[in-house]
C-alpha cells in the first residue's frame, strides 16, 4: 500500500497520473474497454461509467499545440480551447487518440464552435447545455440531453445502459466525490497540513485514474496519513490563506499557485472546475428518477457560462468562511469572456459582503508572464 511511502512521493505519483495513465489507457483499449473523452464538468460521467467505459478529461493545459491550433482558429481565443483543439488535430494527446467518442457541451461560445472543427478528427457528441439554471424548459432540455447521450452511447457501442447500472455509477461517483471532498477539506486545517500545490496535484491527478475504486482507496489512505501526520505535529507554517476561483487551472497554470505560495501565502481552497465546483454537490441517490437526479446535480454547477450564476457565489460564500480565507485570487484565461466579465460581480461580493481582498489575473498557457505574476501575487500577499 502507499502508506509506506513518503508524502512528497505520493503527491508526485498523483502529479504523474496523467503521464502514467497513457499506458493504462492503452491496456484498457487492448481489453476492448471503450474510452470516452470529455471536456467539461457538466458531462454526466455516470452514463459512460454505467456501460463500463473509461472516462478521461481532454482539457489541455499546455501550450505545445497552440501554434497548430492557430492555423485554424483565431489567435485571440482562450488557450484551453486552442490547446485542446490542437491536441486533437495533431494527435499528440494519447487520451484523445484512444477516445472512441468525445463528448462536449454547448458551454462557452469558443468551445461550442471549436467542436464543429474537432469533429473532423474524432466522432463528437455535443450536449445542448441550457444557458440558465432557472427555467423549467432549461431543466427539461438538460434532462432530455442526458437521455440523448445515453442513447448515443448505446447506439455507438451497441450496448444497453440499464437504470441499475446508472444507479451503481451514481453511488460510485458519489463515493468518489465524498472522498475527494474529505481530502480537500484538509485545507481547512490552520496551520495547514499541505500546500495548495499538493492539493491541486491530487485533485488533477485523480481525473486520470481509471480504476475509480482504487482511486477512492488511494485518496482515502492519503487523507488518513496526512491527518495522522498532522496530529503528530507535521504542520506547515501559518501564513495568509488564499482561495483560488475562476477558470480551470492545472498543468502550466500551476504557475499561479506557485506564484502565490512562493510569495508567502498558502492556497487552501480551489473553487475551479478541477476543485470543488463539480465535486461539492452529490447526485441525490434517493430520487427514484435517476435522470432527474443527474440533471439536477449537473445543471447546478456554478460555471460562468450560466446566467445568472449564483451558485458560484454560494460556494465561495461558504468556502471563504469554512476555510478561513484571507484573500481571493480569480484566475481568468486570456479571452475567456464569461469569467472575465464575472470578475466584477465576484470582486463586489468578496470585497463587499466578505470584506476581504480580491484580485483577478489574466494569464495564458505561456510562461512569459511568470515575472509579472510574481510581482502581482507578492503585492497581493503583502496586503493580507
Amino acid at each position, binding site marked *: 500500500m502507499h502508506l509506506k511511502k513518503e508524502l512528497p512521493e505520493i503527491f508526485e505519483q498523483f502529479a504523474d497520473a496523467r503521464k502514467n495513465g497513457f499506458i493504462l489507457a492503452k491496456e484498457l483499449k487492448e481489453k476492448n474497454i471503450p474510452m470516452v473523452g470529455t471536456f467539461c464538468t457538466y458531462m454526466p460521467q455516470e452514463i459512460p461509467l454505467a456501460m463500463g467505459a473509461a472516462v478521461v478529461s481532454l482539457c489541455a493545459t499546455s501550450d505545445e499545440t497552440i501554434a497548430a491550433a492557430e492555423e485554424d482558429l483565431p489567435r485571440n481565443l482562450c488557450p484551453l480551447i486552442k490547446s485542446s483543439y490542437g491536441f486533437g488535430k495533431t494527435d499528440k494527446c494519447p487520451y484523445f487518440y484512444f477516445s472512441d467518442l468525445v463528448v462536449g457541451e454547448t458551454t462557452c461560445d469558443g468551445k461550442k464552435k471549436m467542436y464543429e472543427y474537432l469533429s473532423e478528427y474524432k466522432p463528437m457528441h455535443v450536449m445542448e447545455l441550457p444557458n440558465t439554471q432557472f427555467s423549467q424548459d432549461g431543466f427539461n432540455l438538460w434532462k432530455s440531453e442526458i437521455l440523448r447521450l445515453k442513447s448515443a452511447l448505446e447506439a455507438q457501442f451497441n450496448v444497453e445502459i440499464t437504470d441499475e447500472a446508472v444507479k451503481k455509477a451514481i453511488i460510485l461517483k458519489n463515493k468518489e466525490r465524498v472522498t475527494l471532498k474529505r481530502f480537500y477539506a484538509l485545507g481547512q486545517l490552520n496551520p495547514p497540513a499541505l500546500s495548495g500545490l499538493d492539493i491541486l496535484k491530487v485533485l488533477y491527478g485523480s481525473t486520470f485514474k481509471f480504476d475509480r475504486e482504487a482511486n477512492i482507496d488511494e485518496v482515502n489512505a492519503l487523507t488518513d496519513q496526512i491527518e495522522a501526520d498532522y496530529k503528530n505535529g507535521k504542520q506547515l507554517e501559518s501564513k495568509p490563506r488564499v482561495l483560488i476561483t475562476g477558470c480551470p487551472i492545472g498543468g502550466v497554470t500551476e504557475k499561479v499557485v506557485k506564484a502565490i505560495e512562493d510569495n508567502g501565502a498558502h492556497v487552501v481552497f480551489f473553487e475551479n472546475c478541477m476543485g470543488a465546483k463539480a465535486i461539492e454537490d452529490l447526485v441525490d441517490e434517493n430520487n427514484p428518477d435517476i435522470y432527474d437526479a443527474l440533471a439536477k446535480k449537473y445543471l447546478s454547477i456554478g460555471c460562468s457560462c450560466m446566467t445568472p450564476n449564483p451558485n458560484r457565489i454560494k460556494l465561495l460564500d461558504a468556502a471563504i468562511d469554512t476555510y478561513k480565507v484571507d484573500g481571493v485570487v480569480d484566475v481568468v484565461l486570456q479571452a475567456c469572456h464569461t469569467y472575465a466579465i464575472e470578475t466584477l460581480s465576484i470582486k463586489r461580493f468578496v470585497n463587499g459582503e466578505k470584506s476581504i481582498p480580491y484580485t483577478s489575473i489574466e494569464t495564458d498557457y505561456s510562461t512569459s508572464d511568470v515575472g*509579472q505574476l510574481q*510581482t*502581482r501575487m507578492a503585492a497581493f500577499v*503583502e*496586503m493580507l
Partner: protein
Amino acid sequence: MRIIGIDSGSTTTKGVLLSGDVVEDWLILPTGYNPRQTMKDVYLQLKKDQEAYTVTTGYGRMLLAESDKSVTEITCHAKGARYLCPFAKVVIDIGGQDSKAIALDAQQGVGDFLMNDKCAAGTGRFIEVMMRTLHQDMMDLDAFVKDYEPIPINSMCTVFAESEMIGLLSNGALPNAIAMGVIDAICQRTATFAKRLSIKGTVFFSGGLAQSEIIRATLEKHLGFDVVIHERSQFAGAIGAALIGRSMHP
C-alpha cells in the same frame, strides 16, 4: 540605524538613505542593461563605508546580494506616497514598463491595486517611443507640447501608434499636436484604468512621467480629482522601501 531603500525600475534605479525619519541622501542612475550592477552602484554610493539595513523594491528587487529584505513596488509606492503626500487617497504610478493604480486604505496601506504590465501602451515607454519618432528629447516634453490642441490618436498599441503618427506627419499634422494627442490618449487610458478601483479623493502621481506638468494636468482633467506630485515623486518607491526598513529597525 541607517536604512537604505532602493527601487530598481526598468528605466532608472533610485536610492535613498534614511537617517532617523529624514531622507539624508538621494541618488538616481539610469538602469541600463545591467540592473544588478546599477543596484550595486546605488547601494555602494549611498552606503559609503557605514553599515545600513537595506530594503529593495522594483522589478530588480531580488538582484542585490546585500539586500536584507525585498518588498514589491506596490507596497513601497503606497508607503512612499504617504510620506510625500499624507492626504493622498490613491497612487498612480506610470513607470517605464508598467503602470499601476493603488487605492490606499484608512491606515494608508494598500487597499486595492491594479497593474497594467501586459502592454507598452499606457506606460512611459509609449511616450519615449513617440518622442524618438518625432526626434525630440524627453526632457523637452512639456515645452514641446505646451498650448497645442491634441490630435486624437486611436491606436492603443505602441507599435501601431507609431505607424499612425508617421501617417499623420505625412499628412502635414504638427508634430507638437501629435505629441499632445499621445499624451491625451495615455492619460485617458490611465484614468479609465484607475477608475476601476472606484477611486475617490486626491491622487498622488509618481513615476518618471510625473515630472511632466502637462501630463499631470491632463491626467487630472480625465480623472476629475486633484492630481498632486512632489518634486521627489520619482523616489516614492525607494522611500517606501526605506520606511519599511525603518519600521523593522526603529
